[in-house]
């Protein structure tokens, strides 16, 4: 089955992973900007990172027939440095016209602090002014519930934000309902220990249905599994769910969501090679 991985950090993965993902049916992916594992020291570091996301990675992906898209921001983990965050936010528009940029992301909260909230609001303002789609990171573990509710408060508080153009990621059992009820899209991240397993993601689909829900691997430099979306596909098949339902979650839904971005130019695998 062809599928999208709507959230994966390929700058942290090897070219072998592109090959494996392509063999498993991955035809497109979107890569949000995130934390490098250390705090970057200057806006120039981010400019180079954004060049990597908008130039190098799409070419590397294309070698395996995978279409690569990206989102730009400064991650919440670095938002305690408010002055650097503002420099980065001011620089982002240089890259918004690049052909693989879908919007602003993954913005969000980490430890739910005042500075993180302030930088999040400034990212929202940027997205609204440039009419960009938004991809949201919600916090980990004990901070997730509180942080997700704070994020929703800020999104709902800005009347310029179109909820159907926002994907709230890393939802789990205690956050998915509110995100969907408020009209946003929701992503489930299939992480080995700290987020959602393929089994629990399938449970959430069985509970809430497939509308506005996606699954992703969020594969990065830490413990993660870039082939987690095929694990989810297998779990759904083992439960006897129809191919049409599975395809909706791993292919049709990402396609519908991403198609709202002006930069999204996707060629379906069936149409490749046709002029």
């Amino acid at each position: 089955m062809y599928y999208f991985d709507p959230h994966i950090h390929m700058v942290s993965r090897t070219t072998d992973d592109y090959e494996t993902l392509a063999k498993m049916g991955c035809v497109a992916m979107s890569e949000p900007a995130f934390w490098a594992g250390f705090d970057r020291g200057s806006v120039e570091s981010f400019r180079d990172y954004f060049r990597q996301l908008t130039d190098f990675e799409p070419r590397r992906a294309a070698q395996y027939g995978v279409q690569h898209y990206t989102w730009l921001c400064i991650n919440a983990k670095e938002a305690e440095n408010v002055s650097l965050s503002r420099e980065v936010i001011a620089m982002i528009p240089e890259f918004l016209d690049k052909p693989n940029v879908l919007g602003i992301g993954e913005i969000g909260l980490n430890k739910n602090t005042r500075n993180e909230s302030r930088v999040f609001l400034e990212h929202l303002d940027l997205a609204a002014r440039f009419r960009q789609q938004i991809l949201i990171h919600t916090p980990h573990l004990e901070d997730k519930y509180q942080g997700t509710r704070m994020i929703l408060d800020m999104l709902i508080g800005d009347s310029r934000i179109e909820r159907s153009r926002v994907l709230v990621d890393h939802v789990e059992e205690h956050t998915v309902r509110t995100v969907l009820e408020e009209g946003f899209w929701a992503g489930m991240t299939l992480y080995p220990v700290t987020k959602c397993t393929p089994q629990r993601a399938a449970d959430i689909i069985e509970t809430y249905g497939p509308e506005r829900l996606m699954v992703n691997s969020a594969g990065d430099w830490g413990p993660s599994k870039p082939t987690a979306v095929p694990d989810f596909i297998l779990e759904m098949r083992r439960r006897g769910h129809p191919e049409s339902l599975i395809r909706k979650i791993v292919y049709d839904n990402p396609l519908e969501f991403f198609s709202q971005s002006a930069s999204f130019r996707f060629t379906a695998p069936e149409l490749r090679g046709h002029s």
Partner: protein
Amino acid sequence: MIRQRAAMEILNREFLEIRCKVLELAAAFDRLERGSGGFDDDPRWRKVGEAIDVLRDDRGDRAERVQLIFSRPYAPQWRDEFALDRPE
């Protein structure tokens, strides 16, 4: 509408996995008990106890309720506390 499987079908498929997870918990609890020093007052341990109580009740939505046990509370007035609307 998503098809829901028969409970017995689910139990047949998942019994060994459930058994395995219960055993892992039992062994972890034994490991803790063998360790030196106490841990009964640790708030994390109290939450583990609350979570296990949820598994045994019949009120449904167990995964959501267990998640909430391990979550920091949300206060709707957080924006006022952060004074986000005031200039820096």
